[in-house]
């Protein structure tokens, strides 16, 4: 087993243990903080699938994150006041069933990612970064100025949506639910990456020309990965909306996209559990530096800078050692 494997195990065991201790001592805030790490980490893992393994540096994944969040928000909003989302040409009301919400979020994200990918993947490199940003910005400005769901003010989810057999409004239960999803997604990603699909995807990242010349068209491989990545991120977005009890255009902003990228780089690009570590570290810094000084952003910047300069390959690169390439 590699060092990276053991680091991952420690993190994945450590999180629920920490949450359990917090649960026993009644620190729901800590549990929520851990849930936040998991949900953001999940989004980072989703982005990493496209960015780390497929080489698609998307600066627009907030679009999918926000989409997921808004699906949760809008469904809950309509379920709360019993109104219809659309009345023409068919009637569609809200729902407070998480499973259904997730399915819708994932489905819509897949459709959106398919469309965005279809256009964006014609470009590459920095052009790809910018065109994905463009699409996300469109959604962002739309959300800000569209009054129906609160515009810039966002939308509250007053009661957390329901999941069969889980008391979602209890912090620890919700944590466990999110953690289970995280494990499931990690498992799937791990399989995907080491399967033939993953090999083709990584080949496409390194050298698309090579891939074509051995007879694998890079475009569909990349597009599929882009869609899968968006689906994971949308799921994370939906959970994030539930966690905060609130969704807003800030979930769609380029800052959000940037933060997701930071989780990935900070944790380690192309490392399965890397983005989770990135998210944990980032949330910890953001939360606890603020308590130390008003100038916390200054020091946050210094710490991040030091990490890039001295830890090549992110935190996972630093403590997990080199990746294997056999």
């Amino acid at each position, binding site marked *: 087993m590699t060092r990276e494997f053991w680091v991952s195990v420690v993190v994945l065991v450590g999180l629920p243990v920490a949450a359990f201790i917090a649960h026993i001592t009644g*620190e729901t*805030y800590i549990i*929520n903080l851990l849930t936040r790490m998991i949900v953001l980490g999940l989004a980072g893992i989703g982005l990493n699938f496209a960015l780390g393994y497929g080489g698609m540096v998307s600066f627009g994944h907030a679009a999918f994150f926000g989409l997921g969040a808004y699906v949760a928000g809008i469904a809950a909003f309509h379920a709360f006041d019993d109104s219809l989302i659309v009345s023409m040409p068919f009637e569609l009301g809200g729902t407070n069933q998480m499973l259904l919400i997730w399915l819708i979020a994932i489905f819509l994200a897949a459709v959106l990612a398919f469309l965005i990918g279809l256009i964006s993947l014609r470009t590459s490199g920095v052009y790809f970064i910018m065109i994905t940003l463009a699409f996300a910005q469109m959604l962002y400005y739309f959300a*800000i100025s569209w009054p129906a769901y609160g515009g810039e003010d966002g939308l509250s989810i007053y009661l957390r949506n329901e999941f069969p057999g889980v008391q979602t409004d209890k912090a620890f239960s919700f944590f466990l639910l999110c953690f289970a999803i995280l494990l499931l997604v990690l498992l799937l990603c791990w399989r995907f990456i080491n399967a033939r699909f993953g090999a083709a995807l990584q080949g496409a990242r390194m050298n698309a020309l090579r891939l074509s010349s051995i007879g694998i068209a890079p475009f569909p491989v990349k597009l599929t990965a882009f869609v899968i990545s968006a689906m994971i991120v949308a799921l994370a977005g939906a959970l994030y909306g539930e966690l905060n009890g609130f969704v807003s255009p800030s979930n769609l902003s380029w800052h959000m996209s940037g933060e997701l990228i930071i989780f990935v780089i900070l944790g380690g690009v192309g490392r399965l559990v890397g983005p989770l570590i990135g998210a944990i570290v980032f949330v910890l810094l953001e939360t606890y530096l603020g308590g130390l000084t008003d100038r916390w952003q200054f020091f946050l910047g210094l710490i991040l800078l030091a990490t890039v300069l001295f830890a090549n390959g992110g935190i996972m690169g630093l403590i997990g050692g080199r990746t294997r390439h056999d």
Partner: protein
Amino acid sequence: TTAQAELKVGMITTLSGGGAGLGVDVRDGFQLALKMAGDQQIELLIEDDARKPENAVKIADKFISSDKVDVLTGIIWSNLAMAVVPKAVRGGTFYISPNAGPSALAGKGCHENYFNAAWQNDNLHEAMGNYANEAGYTKSFILAPNYPAGKDALTGYKRFYKGESAGEIYTKLGQTDYAAEIAQIKNSGADSVFFFLPGGMGISFMKQYAQSGIDIPVLGPAFSFDQGILAAVGDAALGVKNSSQWSKDLTNPANKAFVEAFVEEYDRLPSLYASQGFDTANLILSAAAKADISDKAAFREALRAADFESVRGDFKFGPNQHPIQNIYVREVIKENGVLTNKIVSIGLENHGDAYAVDCKM
């Protein structure tokens, strides 16, 4: 003993990044009030939200579930308030707004634990609309950024303004170039311009407006002409009429003491936001003096009574627990070489808000 705090107040405000000046003023005003009261009863926790809704939610969660605060306050921005307040007040925590007053929390969404010690978002704009009538303007050109607070602003203005419209524009949030809008204003035949462009947007607009050489008078809420921002606008702001529920030159004793103490303590003139932070603290102090927080109903009643000397003069709560107060019209002047405001008239007297009727409490 006095060492044991009896009331815990959590302040979530913006202390870093672009809009930090406002949060800093609210915090300073608030702390000044505590200091002046010599109060040991209140334990104040402060955290920076960096103007991100998610951060505000996280901090609120920490304050409520971990620090067990009784009262929350401090949020500057409507969208952050919307993220935090509904959930917090439903959970039984008091929230006292020192700045934002989104309509969604004033009408149907009002709550017994939510108090607004500043204004409902529409208020200052309404006063300006009323003033426009009094000043004899009949053709106003109005503009605001394209987001909810911007829409509230124009709605508020139009609610009182009786003349016709020379044009209505929603600009992009964060826009810095207003040449196109100014050209439209110039060609609209307007006799007055009303704008709501908070922060840097207002500074840019005013500078460029002055540059363009148009002399159509400008009206706006206090936000673009407040003490913290005037210096940056410069002489371009001279003579502009703006509306505010507070002004440095109000003559009531509370205000005089406040302004003096603020300058003494922080070595700068207090801003609107500082006055709001100051009042918020005094409101909480007044309630704490009357009732114990363990009796929530009593504490709520005490808050509702608003039994404190507001720096803005008479102050009371309406049925939706938003202020009923005078809104003044001020003019930007130069005083000892420093730009500041002077009250010229009362825009609206004892003014409540339009959403109170929808509030079923």
